[in-house]
């Protein structure tokens, strides 16, 4: 157990050094959510105010948070793919480490990064006058929901890192996954206002339940039913991804 902690910590420290020494990377990652919040929030404020029943930026905030979690988690496997391409990963595997430490350290690094970004976005929301209805407890719960969503998406990303042959394919998948999934959820507009076929997809999209629960915490207060729906949806999603990921990754990390 001590050895597992030592090797996981060593790998996590490496990822944190990357984060510290490439601050522009995080800045660029933040660019999309910030643009959405400031510009899209501003542009549709007047138009959408009636249909969402209040401040559109506040309405948009949970969608932006979920999108940040999704984008970061989905991209989280890329450094491992680079490690695979340049031989670093193979060398790492020649050390007497538990293979799971590679995944755990990467998962922790992604989620530390994502949590920091979410806090920055919440801070930005605060500047625009958005107050979290559920207070500090709500902020902490938002973070936990982010982790729950991030877990399953990270597993998908790690699977892609191991099964894809080059990072070009990875970037292509990354580029086409985030935005459609956001539109097929309650990120920008209420699900009820979507066309029927989009609504059907939104109902099976875990992002929808994540965003609905986050939105209630930000706009109105604690809603047990929405939190329970989110918990069930994300536990099912995470469980399914973990089951599938374990099958695939066991082969690649033998």
């Amino acid at each position, binding site marked *: 157990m001590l*050895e597992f902690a*030592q*090797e996981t*910590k*060593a*790998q996590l*420290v*490496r990822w944190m*050094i*990357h984060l510290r*020494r*490439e601050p522009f990377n995080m800045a660029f990652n933040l660019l999309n959510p910030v643009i959405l919040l400031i510009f899209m929030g501003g542009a549709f404020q007047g138009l959408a105010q009636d249909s969402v029943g209040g401040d559109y930026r506040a309405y948009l905030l949970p969608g932006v948070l979920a999108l940040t979690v999704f984008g970061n988690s989905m991209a989280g496997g890329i450094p491992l793919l680079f490690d695979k391409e*340049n*031989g*670093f990963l*193979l*060398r*790492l*595997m*020649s*050390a*007497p*480490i538990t293979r799971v430490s590679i995944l755990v350290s990467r998962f922790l690094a992604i989620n530390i990064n994502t949590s920091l970004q979410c806090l920055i976005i919440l801070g930005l929301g605060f500047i625009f006058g958005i107050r979290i209805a559920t207070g500090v407890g709500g902020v902490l719960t938002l973070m936990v929901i982010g982790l729950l969503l991030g877990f399953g998406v990270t597993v998908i990303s790690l699977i892609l890192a191991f099964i894809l042959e080059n990072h070009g394919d990875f970037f292509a998948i990354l580029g086409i996954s985030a935005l459609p999934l956001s539109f097929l959820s309650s990120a920008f507009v209420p699900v009820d206002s979507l066309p029927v076929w989009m609504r059907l997809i939104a109902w099976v999209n875990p992002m929808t339940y994540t965003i609905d629960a986050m939105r209630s915490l930000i706009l109105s207060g604690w809603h047990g039913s929405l939190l329970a729906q989110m918990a069930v949806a994300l536990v099912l999603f995470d469980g399914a991804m973990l089951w599938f990921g374990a099958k695939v990754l066991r082969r690649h990390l*033998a």
Partner: protein
Amino acid sequence: MSNAVIRIENLTKRYGLVTALDDISLEVERGTIFGLLGPNGAGKTTAVKILTTLARPDGGKIEVIGTDILKDPVRVRSLIGYVPQELTVDPYLTVQEHLRYYADLYHLSAVGKDSRIREVLGLVGLAGYENRRARYLSGGTKKKIDLACGLIHRPPLLFLDEPSLGLDVQARRDVWSYILRLKEQGTTSFLCTNYMDEAERLCDIVAIIEHGRIAVIGSPAQLRSQLKRDVISIEIASADEHQRKELEVLEKAVSQLRIVQGTVKNGTQLKVYVESNEIALPQILQSAASLSIPIRTITYSRPGLDEVFLHYTGHPFADERKIDA
């Protein structure tokens, strides 16, 4: 009791229809430098990947430091060092951070970790580079980081896949001297190379591998002496059409001589394999004079490993990346 740190019996590895390693058996003695010599694609890296537990064999039995690699791969990993062919440094990390990283992956205790890092950095000539980021270092220095990382846990057995690939002359010599220093300290090295001079300079035992099969194993001296022949190299002034034709004529003429065992033409150079330099040299010079073919240089030597390769495989070594050192 055998002194072998690696024991391979009937190792076979296939990738689809391609047989990468075909029924290989060999032993590596403790405290030696063992070289697997062969051209690109001969199966060297596949062999190292299997021995370092990074790939599974399709057949055969392999023991590394008395441990079956399939039964207890984790123990094997803890006992070996591995320096791959590619540079595997992380551009964001400093030299010291690399060493700390690998020290933790090999579970070194906190006590003595720093002193071991200093010791290894000193060994590979990286003292003073501790806080430099890998991104800003030369290829040779990066290779030294790779080597240092492979040594951090004092492995009794070190695997080096093409250790001097892509290095300049000085860095190459430095790496060689570190490998020899490790031998003095009792470390066994298993080295893959496609450089004849590297194998000749470093290795106690060389196995020549081609198409996944071991053609011959022995010390460089043994392999050379088994050939019982000398080499005469003839060089013409230029590679123009006329002179190339003359070289062809000369090749035909010397091939007729009874003392000549074989010839290999390469650009402006003709290698003639003979039983004895002393007898053959005047005869070859006489042939050239009678044909009025101008020779720029003519040298003779004992055979090198390239001649050994030619002898055992039937064709010259495809050494496209040969560098002068």
